[in-house]
């Protein structure tokens, strides 16, 4: 790849990392932060991030082109899947959206570093301009991210939030999953080399005690995304003074209410359901495993499933899923074999699947209990009489749900949202938007930016 070696992750794979290299990198990051990052205002950071994102959305952008050229081999996602996932992500980067995020997370308060706080002027418009400043906030000096390997957006968002908090950042990528974080970091470097010098990325197989020990000794705050085992292992290694933010794996599902199951709307609903299944090939925690579809709509639930299968077949032509590992294909194959057997014996169970490939699968069954999909465009469609049946079906998932994608009339949607919120779902969005959370998304119900920062309360 034709990229300069700015980051440890740019080194050739045979270059062995040592704790001394990690130590040196962390020392440099701290120095660079003091010089280059601390003087920067929130507004200037927003401007930079929006500029970088706007560049990524240009077809000729170098980093975008590298992502689409090298991504399929490195990540397993097809260029079409990468393109729509990255575009949806970077389109959220607007000054308005960043201001909404800051208003939500810090109100009108100023960052103690960079913002012009001595003058008492607010660089970010406060929602209640007349209320007194509640205090000042600041980000961690050295923010360490332990990134997961499945989809890139969470890693890119972590780096974005860290820039907003003006933290030096060290991201440990999963081995073999560094490409997109690297390209994003290079694009920051390209836009502003001084800010790029406050980032470090490296990739190694998680659990390397020597490297991680060195890294954690420097960290002020560590975020980690991954399995429960990964999070527990990271947490156990951290010195007690280091703050830890762990994001475990979650699951998501969709709900389609019967009023939208009519001929006038069905094509749009099906298309939005397919958007959520195709986005990142269902690899993220926000992707649906199951779509619950209310019975007794003008279009019946099995018709919904059949039309969804047709739509997924068309999506495969337009935006192919891409190759997957043998083990992943084997999971799909095993699940298909089971449901083919069930479907042969039960008139109320059906399966539609791509021929001669595992590219997509729709399983229709009346059993309301939530099922874990083998993912990679494998979706369960489950008819339900009403919302309580859904809540019974997902009963064992308390605390493990990320997102519910809703297709319902506006009045019904508000009512359903209340019910799901009461049950404990942290995010409810329109079907079709499940993998495109806004910048203001509170990750797993926690304030994403707010959790990173520390406050100075002013009680004067």
């Amino acid at each position, binding site marked *: 790849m034709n990229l300069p070696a700015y980051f440890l992750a740019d080194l050739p794979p045979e270059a062995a990392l040592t704790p001394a290299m990690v130590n040196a990198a962390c020392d440099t990051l701290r120095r660079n932060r003091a010089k280059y990052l601390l003087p920067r205002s929130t507004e200037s950071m927003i401007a930079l991030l929006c500029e970088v994102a706007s560049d990524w959305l240009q077809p000729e952008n170098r980093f975008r082109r590298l992502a689409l050229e090298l991504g399929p081999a490195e990540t397993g996602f097809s260029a079409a899947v990468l393109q729509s996932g990255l575009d949806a992500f970077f389109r959220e980067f607007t000054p308005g959206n960043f201001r909404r995020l800051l208003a939500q997370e810090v109100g009108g308060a100023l960052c103690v570093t960079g913002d012009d706080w001595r003058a008492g002027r607010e660089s970010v418009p406060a929602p209640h301009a007349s209320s007194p400043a509640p205090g000042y906030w600041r980000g961690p000096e050295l923010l360490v991210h332990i990134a997961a390997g499945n989809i890139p957006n969470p890693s890119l968002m972590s780096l974005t939030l860290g820039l907003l908090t003006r933290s030096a950042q060290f991201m440990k990528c999963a081995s073999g999953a560094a490409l997109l974080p690297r390209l994003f970091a290079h694009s920051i470097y390209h836009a502003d080399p001084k800010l790029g010098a406050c980032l470090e990325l490296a990739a190694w197989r998680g659990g390397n005690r020597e490297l991680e020990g060195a890294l954690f000794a420097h960290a002020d705050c560590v975020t980690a995304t991954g*399995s429960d085992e990964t999070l527990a292992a990271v947490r156990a290694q951290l010195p007690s003074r280091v703050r830890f933010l762990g994001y475990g794996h979650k699951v998501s599902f969709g709900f389609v209410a019967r009023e939208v199951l009519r001929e006038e709307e069905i094509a749009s609903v099906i298309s939005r359901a397919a958007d959520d299944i195709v986005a990142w090939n269902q690899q993220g925690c926000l992707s649906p495993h199951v779509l619950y579809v209310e019975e007794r709509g003008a279009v019946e639930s099995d018709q919904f499933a059949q039309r969804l299968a047709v739509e997924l077949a068309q999506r495969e032509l337009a935006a192919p899923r891409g190759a997957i590992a043998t083990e992943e294909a084997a999971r799909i194959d095993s699940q298909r*074999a089971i449901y083919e057997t069930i479907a042969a014996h039960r008139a109320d169970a059906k399966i539609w699947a791509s021929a001669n490939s595992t590219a997509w699968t729709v399983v229709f069954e009346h059993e309301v209990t939530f099922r874990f999909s083998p993912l990679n465009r494998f979706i369960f469609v489950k008819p339900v009489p009403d919302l309580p049946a859904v809540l019974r079906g997902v009963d064992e998932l308390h605390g493990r749900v990320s997102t519910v994608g809703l297709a319902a009339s506006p009045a019904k949607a508000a009512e359903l949202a209340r019910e799901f919120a009461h049950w404990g779902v942290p995010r409810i969005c329109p079907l079709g938007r499940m993998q495109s959370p806004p910048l203001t998304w509170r990750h797993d119900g926690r304030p994403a930016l707010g959790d990173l920062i520390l406050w100075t309360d002013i009680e004067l």
Partner: protein
Amino acid sequence: MTPELSAYAARLRGLMAVSPPAISPAQFDRLALELFALQFQSNPAYRKICEARGQTPATVQHWSQIPALPTAAFKDLDLTCLAPTERTTVFHSSGTTEQRPSRHWHGMESLAVYEASLTAWFLENVPPDLRFAIADLRLICLTPPPSLVPHSSLVHMFDVVRREYALPASVFTGQLDAAGSWTLDFTSVYNQLTAAIQSRQQVILLGTAFSFVHLLDFLAIKDLVFNLPEGSLVMETGGYKNRSRILPKSGLHALITERLGVPREQILCEYGMSELSSQAYDGGARSLRLEASGSSTPSPKPQAPSRFSFPPWARAQILSPETGQGVGEGETGLIRILDLANVFSVLAVQTEDLGVRRGDGFELIGRAQLAEPRGCSLMNA
């Protein structure tokens, strides 16, 4: 059950009794298509699935096209040609987490085929000097006895081996704990091993991989090392099923050699499941014979790539999960087995195990776990 199936079973047992066993490819194909047609008639649950797939005796031309059923289908369906009154025995799939185990029904005749199959192929795979009952042989099974676990096909198999040898000195050293999990009576194993060494008896030690881990951990804690008499044989089988820590195969075998004094070439690995009536073996006498005959300079490498082989009346196919087509040599796919010894159930079984194709056999990779895509751990929670 029909007279045709009974006649088929009798014929198959005749073929199994030939040593060394040999069935030509054409003969295998004929036998498979014949059995498929019989099962299509007599196994309504199987027929329904074949019809749904449009694969019937009228359309299937070759044994490799015979519709295979997933092992999971044995959980929900009675996949048998036996009438309810003919079902005398049922084997369940193992595993502590199984809510609903597989059920493989057997009757008198099907057990006779099962036992003929396992005996013939077991004897073919043990060293020649262990092939016949000899007085100074001691058989130790690290499982509970059949009376405690009547639905374990594995324990039934061990019991058949025990009967075959007709040995007075044979013992099951496993027990069941309150939760129904298999445990080991360490004192009993210790006494058995000690007695074998004192009386210089060769030992055949049969067990699951996790029972060997339990035993080896016990020996490590007590700092005990046994040096079993030369010629002793270890046979290990099955996965770990969350019943012990997991060791890679080479690590398990190294520990067996270290703690029990049984060299690698005397360790036999078995691959079997309750849904089948035949087993595959890796290592042991037959593998060594093949290795020696395969090259003019027999390789002494103890860690040659492992290769499981079924008897001639069963075939393993390694299929690409993506396309359903057979994979090339050295490539990985799902293991599908066509077992003629499954006379009274379903002859073609699709496993959820991945294997690397090695000639007619395979190297076992293991189960493709569901719903742990790229590190999602909800299923483990």
